[in-house]
């Protein structure tokens, strides 16, 4: 019986959905002013600021952006917003996101149209019909061809809603319903998510006064990275690189979010001055060892990454995804790995210095043959007696055996390097690759020694071979 009632009333609601803007809530009256503010003349101003900043960022990068990429995002957003607007008229969803009267938007778009026009100029005219419309009509955005809102408006609305409700589930619900109805594709959903996150980020950061000057910082930092293809690729630089090249919409928005977040954290770090990093003695030592003047960027990168990791672990512990002990042990492992890496780095420097001191190749091979002889003597002892029984007819002499091992390793390494050189995309960076390989091999060799896969001497021999290349 109860369900029959529910059903009837829901039916009634559906039929009467248009006049009802939102479901009344117990504390509904409090929300009303905020909702109504969307309709007031004040809102466009706030929106303008938000959009202006978004535009400023977008505007700085279109020259570097491949026109196709940003175009895709914008056009899809327009399609998306169309879909959303249509859909919202049908569904009894959170009505506050529904398009408000056009006149307010007109004002906004009037102000923004000049900025958007510049963006349009970069678009590939063959990309889509919608874009074509815009290219023909420079003021197309505020001459509403049935599109009452710009993409940014929709995004702003959703973000505001999420912010007010303090519930990310709002977004998930909307998007999943859209996906289920087939109105947007998954990639469009991702793009939307990124943009909403971006605006949300701004909303939140705006709220915190201490970070008032934040929005400008990430822009200037990333601006300096424009067009640079860094030799030493660190994730930070790569993120910024990806950002400037606009390779991936997701990366773009995510990195903006990331940069904002990291910037904020860096701010904390400056104030606290190693408060948390003191718990990572090895990392701290490593930081100290990095020359501040020459490798400031690397230092900064390392700090930010560590901070991110620490925050992440804290977050996970907070939300109960992992237990505090797991978090601690993970961070401890991290520190240990850093210690190992630092040690390897130092060792590498030492061996590099050694090879610098003994450049003559004859001396190097001397070293190797010496070690080979040692190993030969060892092996002969081990295998001499046993070998005879199993090898009835072995054409290869026994004396080949011990030399054979180092030789075999040498041969294998040679083949590897040869193959890597042939198939490495960054063909002209041979020296760099070699040092990468060296580090990797050193690390792996040590790991293998620990696990009992390699003998210490073998590992050393391999490391020597690599460092001599």
């Amino acid at each position: 019986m109860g369900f029959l009632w529910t059903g009837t009333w829901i039916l009634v609601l559906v039929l009467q959905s248009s006049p009802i803007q939102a479901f009344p809530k117990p504390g509904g009256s409090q929300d009303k002013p905020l909702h109504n503010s969307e309709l007031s003349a004040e809102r466009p101003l706030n929106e303008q600021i938000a959009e202006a900043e978004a535009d400023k960022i977008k505007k700085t990068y279109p020259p570097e952006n491949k026109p196709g990429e940003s175009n895709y995002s914008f056009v899809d957003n327009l399609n998306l917003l169309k879909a959303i607007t249509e859909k919202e008229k049908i569904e009894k969803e959170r009505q506050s996101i529904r398009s408000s009267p056009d006149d307010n938007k007109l004002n906004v778009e009037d102000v923004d149209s000049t900025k958007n026009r510049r963006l349009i100029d970069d678009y590939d005219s063959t990309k889509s019909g919608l874009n074509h419309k815009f290219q023909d009509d420079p003021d197309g955005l505020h001459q509403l061809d049935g599109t009452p809102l710009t993409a940014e408006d929709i995004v702003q609305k959703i973000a505001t809603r999420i912010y007010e409700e303090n519930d990310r589930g709002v977004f998930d619900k909307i998007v999943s319903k859209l996906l289920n109805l087939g109105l947007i594709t998954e990639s469009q959903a991702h793009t939307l998510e990124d943009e909403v996150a971006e605006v949300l980020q701004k909303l939140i950061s705006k709220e915190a006064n201490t970070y008032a000057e934040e929005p400008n910082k990430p822009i200037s930092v990333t601006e300096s990275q424009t067009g640079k293809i860094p030799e030493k690729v660190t994730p930070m630089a790569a993120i910024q690189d990806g950002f400037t090249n606009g390779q991936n919409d997701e990366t773009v928005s995510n990195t903006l979010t990331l940069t904002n977040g990291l910037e904020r954290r860096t701010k904390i770090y400056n104030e606290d001055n190693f408060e948390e990093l003191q718990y990572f003695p090895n990392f701290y030592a490593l930081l100290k060892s990095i020359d501040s003047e020459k490798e400031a960027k690397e230092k900064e990168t390392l700090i930010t990454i560590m901070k991110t990791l620490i925050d992440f672990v804290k977050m996970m512990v907070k939300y109960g995804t992992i237990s505090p002990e797991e978090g601690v042990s993970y961070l401890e492992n991290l520190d240990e790995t850093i210690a190992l890496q630092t040690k390897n780095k130092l060792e590498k420097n030492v061996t590099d210095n050694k090879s610098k001191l003994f450049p003559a190749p004859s001396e190097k091979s001397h070293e190797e043959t010496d070690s080979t002889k040692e190993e030969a003597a060892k092996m002969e002892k081990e295998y001499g007696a046993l070998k005879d029984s199993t090898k009835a007819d072995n054409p290869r002499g026994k004396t080949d055996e011990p030399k054979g091992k180092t030789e075999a390793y040498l041969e294998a390494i040679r083949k590897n390097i040869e193959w890597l050189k042939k198939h490495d995309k960054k063909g002209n960076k041979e020296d760099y690759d070699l040092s990468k390989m060296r580090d990797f091999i050193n690390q792996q060799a040590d790991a293998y020694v620990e696990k009992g896969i390699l003998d210490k001497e073998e590992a050393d021999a391999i490391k020597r071979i690599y460092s001599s290349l």
Partner: protein
Amino acid sequence: MAARGGRALLALCGALAACGWLLGAQAQEPGAPAAGMRRRRRLQQEDGISFEYHRYPELREALVSVWLQCTAISRIYTVGRSFEGRELLVIELSDNPGVHEPGLVYNICYLFLRFTSILTTANLHCEPEFKYIGNMHGNEAVGRELLIFLAQYLCNEYQKGNETIVKLIHNTRIHIMPSLNPDGFEKAASQPGELKDWFVGRSNAQGIDLNRNFPDLDRIVYVNEKEGGPNNHLLKNLKKIVDQNTKLAPETKAVIHWIMDIPFVLSANLHGGDLVANYPYDETRSGSAHEYSSCPDDAIFQSLARAYSAFNPPMSDPNRPPCRKNDDDSSFIDGTTNGAAWYSVPGGMQDFNYLSSNCFEITVELSCEKFPPEETLKSYWEDNKNSLISYLEQIHRGVKGFVRDLQGNPIANATISVEGIDHDVTSAKDGDYWRLLVPGNYKLTASAPGYLAITKKVAVPYSPAVGVDFELESFSERKEVEKEELMEWWKMMSETLNF
């Protein structure tokens, strides 16, 4: 607070994407075959493969050489130690291991990825896992050597750009364990002279026959068949049981952990003493000495066994005389046989795989002589190399896909059942599953506790595997939606009617 959490997650996704992109950029891709690669032709050696017996140090050395030559696609690890302390070495070949990590920053990035991979929906596990295990009986030496040759061969061919091999390595994670019983091998190999005893070195250092040492799940299954009960994933709470079981050899324990840790799909267990490809079940139902005892997947197993034997000329030769004059090979068909039809084996590794995990395993007998003379190794390699590759390729058959919820999150341990085949497989950690099937039309059902099951019809060709994904709706989701609607209705009512 959820908004902040979401934001942090997004930030991390960004970092993740960046890391993944960076690391991906380091992965090697094969191009044109390496021209002008010197081929040293020494006696008994070809392309770095030396056709001779490898004792434990040489075995290690050979695997290390393969790794050194193919760092981009290989990784050595150990699943444990034998009774006498020798490492049970495995070499893994796939395009995933050996990703270059050039410096400290990269390492953190990589650790980051590893740590967060369990928490994100990034599918780092998109390739099926395959394993070869040899030399379980220490004196059955051919399998051990063949696997060492195979590792070298795969590395060489990959670098030459051999399309079949490149594709295999890019689409599969191949784990090769040349010897499960290195102690036994040492004992067998230490015998003077060329003629080796039929039994010396067969069992491990404790005298345990490893292929009778696995928990006998066949017996449980046969009981379940009569009285009702499952016939898959029969070992629950197994880590504890396995570790506490004093009768299990360390080698056996190591393999059981290995099987449970990695979601293997297909496997083969190499032996010697005859020439046939043997498939489940190994133990007779009635307890008699010989009796064809088919498992629910008899059809696909026959196909798998044939895929091996067909490429091995002596094995598939219908006119081949039996290895020994009085041998009974009446059960052999096209070089294949049902295990129990040949002779009953309880506690074997092959059936243990099938009944405790998703892995389908067959047993391959490679040589009439268990420890043949060294100069015959090259011809054994020639006879078997095509079979070994062909069997590897069988993993890309049947149906595969992902089981996810409506939000796109993977559902691990979902059950995938096939109508008409009374044996289910489960999805792995990332929601991925593989179901080997012979060609035909099937109905697949994916289900998980708390979710509504979904059935889909699939037409399966011989190969490649057909992709079928499932998106399951959870009970609670539906309940939540209904609850919300009810709440909203109630509020509306109360507002309207002023109560």
